[in-house]
């Protein structure tokens, strides 16, 4: 029943080994966070899954279909919002659909409404705040026909308050749509708050050190952050990363 299978991926840049025997499976609708030191190869892993960087060995499957080296199967959301400055908000969120060949503006407008962006459809990205841009970028990913979304540190450029708002918003909207999410972050709290599963990568070359199920019940609220259990998890993850 696994949606995405990553099977023994190896990748080096010259003599520089980056990914070493990385394997995991993501189930339908699962939210998986990937934590790892800077430079360990998280972005490289996304590019391999997305089919724009060739791995040295290993395979990737979606629903049993081998997609190694093929693009078009994931929707990627980069660290910067990466919106097209010459497109309006509405045209920006429709980009993923356009690439696949069919636009559905009605659905897009509904989604923008859910994101509190109604009235901004005709605006250009430079007229939006940082948090709004990230929301637009995420809606673009959600509207794309792909069921797998890879987010690469999407909130790292935001201040703490906006960031927390965005996390709550992300959770509420993700629960409505059956999308599988791979989420790269440097923020332990964010990873614990959001995910079903937490994958910890070692320093370069990246191997999977830990693959933990996060037991907190959904829907999750701010209260969770102050529970003892949460703090203990935080400590445990921190210790794990510190060991390198």
């Amino acid at each position, binding site marked *: 029943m696994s949606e995405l299978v990553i099977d023994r991926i190896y990748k080096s840049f010259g003599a520089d080994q980056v990914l070493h025997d990385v394997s995991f499976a993501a189930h339908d609708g699962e939210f998986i966070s990937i934590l790892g030191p800077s430079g360990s190869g998280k972005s490289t892993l996304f590019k391999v899954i997305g089919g724009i960087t060739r791995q040295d060995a290993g395979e990737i499957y979606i629903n049993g279909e081998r997609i190694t080296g093929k693009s078009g199967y*994931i*929707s990627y959301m980069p660290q910067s919002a*990466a919106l*097209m400055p010459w497109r309006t908000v509405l045209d920006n969120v429709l980009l993923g659909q356009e690439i696949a060949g069919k636009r559905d503006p009605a659905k897009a407008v509904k989604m923008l409404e859910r994101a509190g962006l109604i009235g901004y459809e005709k605006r250009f990205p430079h007229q939006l705040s940082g948090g709004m841009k990230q929301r637009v970028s995420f809606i673009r990913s959600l509207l794309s026909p792909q069921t797998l979304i890879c987010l690469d540190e999407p909130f790292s450029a935001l201040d703490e308050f906006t960031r927390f708002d965005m996390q709550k918003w992300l959770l509420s909207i993700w629960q409505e749509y059956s999308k599988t999410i791979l989420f790269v972050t440097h923020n332990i709290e964010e990873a614990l708050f959001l995910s079903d599963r937490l994958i910890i990568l070692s320093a370069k070359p990246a191997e999977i050190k830990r693959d933990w199920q996060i037991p907190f019940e959904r829907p999750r609220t701010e209260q969770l952050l102050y529970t003892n259990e949460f703090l203990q998890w935080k400590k445990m993850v921190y210790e794990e990363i510190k060991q390198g």
Partner: protein
Amino acid sequence: MKTIWQKGWGALFVVILLFISWEASVRIFRVPNWLLPSPSQIVKEMVEGYHVYGEHLLPTLSLALSGLMVGCLIGIIIGIGLHIVPFLRQAFYPLLIISQNIPVIVLAPLLVIWFGFGMLPKMIVITLVCFFPITVSLLDGFQHTDRELWNYMKMAGATRKQLFWKLEWPQAIPALFSGLKISATYSVMGAVISEWLGAERGIGVYMTLASSSFRTDRVFVAILFVVTFSLLLFAFIVFLEKLVIKWDPEKEGLIDE
């Protein structure tokens, strides 16, 4: 906007000062008319001599416009071609630069020998002058494609064609316009030079006639019109730019950048 006006007034002030001292020097030192006419004499010729130069204005303007259009089209086609096929870029980019080191004046007689006195050699001259800034700025614009957007589109399965039309081309539009502004001002000069190859009417013809009969005031009238037309075309491109670019090209829609 305010600073542009302030700068504009500064420039105007300098020009006025220049004209006043020019007028004064010509009068004080009694410079003969055929050597250097005073501004007032030039203005007088401009007002009274319309029946002489009137018929020469439109042909030059329309020649410059159509030449600019052809040069623009060719500049864009070459720019896209060199960008899409990296091999062509490596092979032809140096040649393009060299082509700009050949003075058009030197080429002109050759063009007449090869193509006669018709429209074709004139178009070739203006095109040669106009396409280069467009091609170069377009190639430059293509170079600055946003990597993150490129990756996003690639991973979403975009084809080469989609990448070009949805990302590279719109991203290069502001650069294209900066090239267009340069070409627009060059095009009038190109038109005048091409008229020296032989034409019945045009500012180039009027200028030749004026200088061979030592009517220096008329040469200055011609220069004035060349400048005016160049500014006019420049303003037209700026107007088009405002019409086309509704976004803010300075901020690329990235956070904190």
